[in-house]
């Protein structure tokens, strides 16, 4: 099997004073070499938590459960913390959304780039710097050698994100998770970063998970897509199929929200996702009624969103 990263029925449970929260439920996916899986959904649907769960970076109050979770054949469920730390940054890397705050302001760019290589391998200082310079250049940063000595506050947001990408690639990981890497950047830089990621993937055969709430971006970069809503996967399949023929009303709803230049007539109302269908998942997974001590101002009690997860087996599509 060409499976680099595989998850079956991934669950995240968070213990809060008000009760148990299940922000991620029954999420399954697989990622092969050279593939890009897009995860889309609105804010709060659990996409970031899913990736943190895979990385083993959940907060202390959260617990992860799954029937299966493996990276390049290695079982991530049975692994201990130290071995997991060996894998992070090494075999699986992550890029985050906020480039402005993701780098330590007290250390130079070079220091932060080189430290992951030092951590995971016995590489000399010279070699590490060379790789750092190479990657900085590869990510489109000018004058890479002098950047090593610079500090994060001296770089713009776009540059910092490129540094983050370079940092993620230092140890030649097999999987990279990009959590909304372009959301905090302006549109022109967005396009450049996307192009960069696509290039790198073609060149290295790295598997990529691309998380975004922006359907347009995901459709450009991912072959497979997974639509998440309220912690569950509501639809999954190839990007082309899911976006041209969505089976789930939520996906349809998301697509309806996007105005299409030329097609959407002026003055018509854009689609929206009705809140009546979007309760927060405060109840236990059995659907018990909400506990009385809920901190939010108002919430709709009891209702479960109905979920329908159509599967698109290869060759089963009728009209296309």
């Amino acid at each position, binding site marked *: 099997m060409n499976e680099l990263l595989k998850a079956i029925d991934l669950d995240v449970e968070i*213990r*809060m*004073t008000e009760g148990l929260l299940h922000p991620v439920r029954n999420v399954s996916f697989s990622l092969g070499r050279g593939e890009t899986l897009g995860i889309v959904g609105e804010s709060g649907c659990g996409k970031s938590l899913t990736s943190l769960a895979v990385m083993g970076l959940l907060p202390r*109050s959260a617990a992860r459960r799954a029937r299966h979770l493996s990276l390049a054949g290695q079982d991530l469920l049975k692994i201990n913390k130290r071995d997991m730390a060996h894998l992070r940054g090494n075999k699986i890397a992550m890029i985050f959304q906020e480039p402005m705050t993701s780098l330590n302001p007290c250390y130079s760019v070079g220091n932060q780039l080189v430290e992951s290589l030092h951590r995971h391998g016995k590489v000399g200082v010279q070699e590490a710097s060379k790789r750092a310079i190479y990657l900085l250049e590869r990510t489109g940063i000018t004058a890479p050698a002098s950047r090593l000595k610079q500090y994060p506050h001296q770089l713009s947001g776009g540059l910092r994100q490129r540094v983050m990408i370079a940092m993620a690639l230092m140890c030649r990981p097999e999987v990279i998770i990009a959590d909304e890497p372009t959301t905090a950047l302006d549109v022109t830089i967005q396009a450049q970063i996307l192009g960069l990621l696509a290039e790198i993937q073609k060149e290295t055969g790295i598997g990529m998970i691309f998380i975004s709430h922006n359907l347009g971006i995901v459709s450009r970069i991912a072959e497979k897509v997974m639509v998440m809503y309220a912690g569950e996967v509501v639809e999954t399949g190839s990007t082309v199929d899911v976006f041209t023929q969505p*089976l789930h*009303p939520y996906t349809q709803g998301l697509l309806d929200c996007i105005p299409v230049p030329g097609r959407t007539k002026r003055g018509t109302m854009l689609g929206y996702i*009705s809140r*009546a*269908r979007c309760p927060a998942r405060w109840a236990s997974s059995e659907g018990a009624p*909400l506990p*009385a*001590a*809920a*901190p939010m*101002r*108002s*919430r*709709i*009690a*009891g*209702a479960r969103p*109905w979920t*329908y997860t*159509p599967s*698109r087996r290869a060759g*089963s*599509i*009728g*009209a296309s």
Partner: protein
Amino acid sequence: MPDGMMPEAEILEPAEEVGVSQRTILLRRIVGHKGLLVGTSIVLFFILVALFAPIITRHDPYGQDLYHRLQNPVWYADGDWENPLGTDRMGRDYLTRLIYGSRVSLIIGFSAVAISMVIGCTLGIVGGYFRGRIDMMINYLTTVQLSMPVIIVALAIMSLTKGSFLLVIFIIGFFGWTGFAIVTRSTTQQIRSLDYIVAAQAAGCSNFKIIFSEILPNVLPQVIVVATLGIAGAILAETGLSFLGLGVNPPTPSWGLMVNEGKVFMFTKPWVILFPGILIFLLVYAMNMLGDGLRDIISPEGRN
């Protein structure tokens, strides 16, 4: 279900709204915070003792009785329940002086902090609100105050003036405003830059009105926290001054003064310093627990 078929979309009716008011949350947090409850009860206890002192003990804390000087407490063979903790050098009932000592500590603590609060909040709000040169001046004043060796200057002043109850309050209050100033200044600055304040000014709202209706209520929670912790500090300051003989004057029943007076006996009769010392510790401890508890309630950090 066959592929390609879309199930009916049910529009779910919103069930009953589960709402919890802010007040209930606050009350629940208060009741759940053990430290706050313990601290508040102990402080209340001391306040009650101070208020009802004349009823609790019928001795006069200033009443000298030189025939009965240095009596031993009850647990000695020659002690009796008339003076459960014995008498001091001047024949005054020790227990009574301890009880009235709570009045001294509480009054000085609260009054001194009141003075600090007025000075500090005024300076902090004015500096944070008007910014510019005024703010620079006030910042400078704060730095100067923080750089002053307060203990020494206070001691020196007390020494030159031969001390008095009011003067102790004034000195401690006068030198303790920086905490209030710093906290109110940063909060005022934050609020000041909010859009609705600018809008209010544009609409012709006077600065005075803005400060009173917008800034003060928002500054209040933090000021309360600083005040309770400040009272703890003020009580410690007074006992320290009195211990050095430069605080309130005898015969005022201050716990610090009692430790000072009892020092000479401490090797043979340790309780003479132990009781007042422990009472100081207990009251200050309770005050600190209260302040910390309030701080946790107002801005819970790291609580899940």
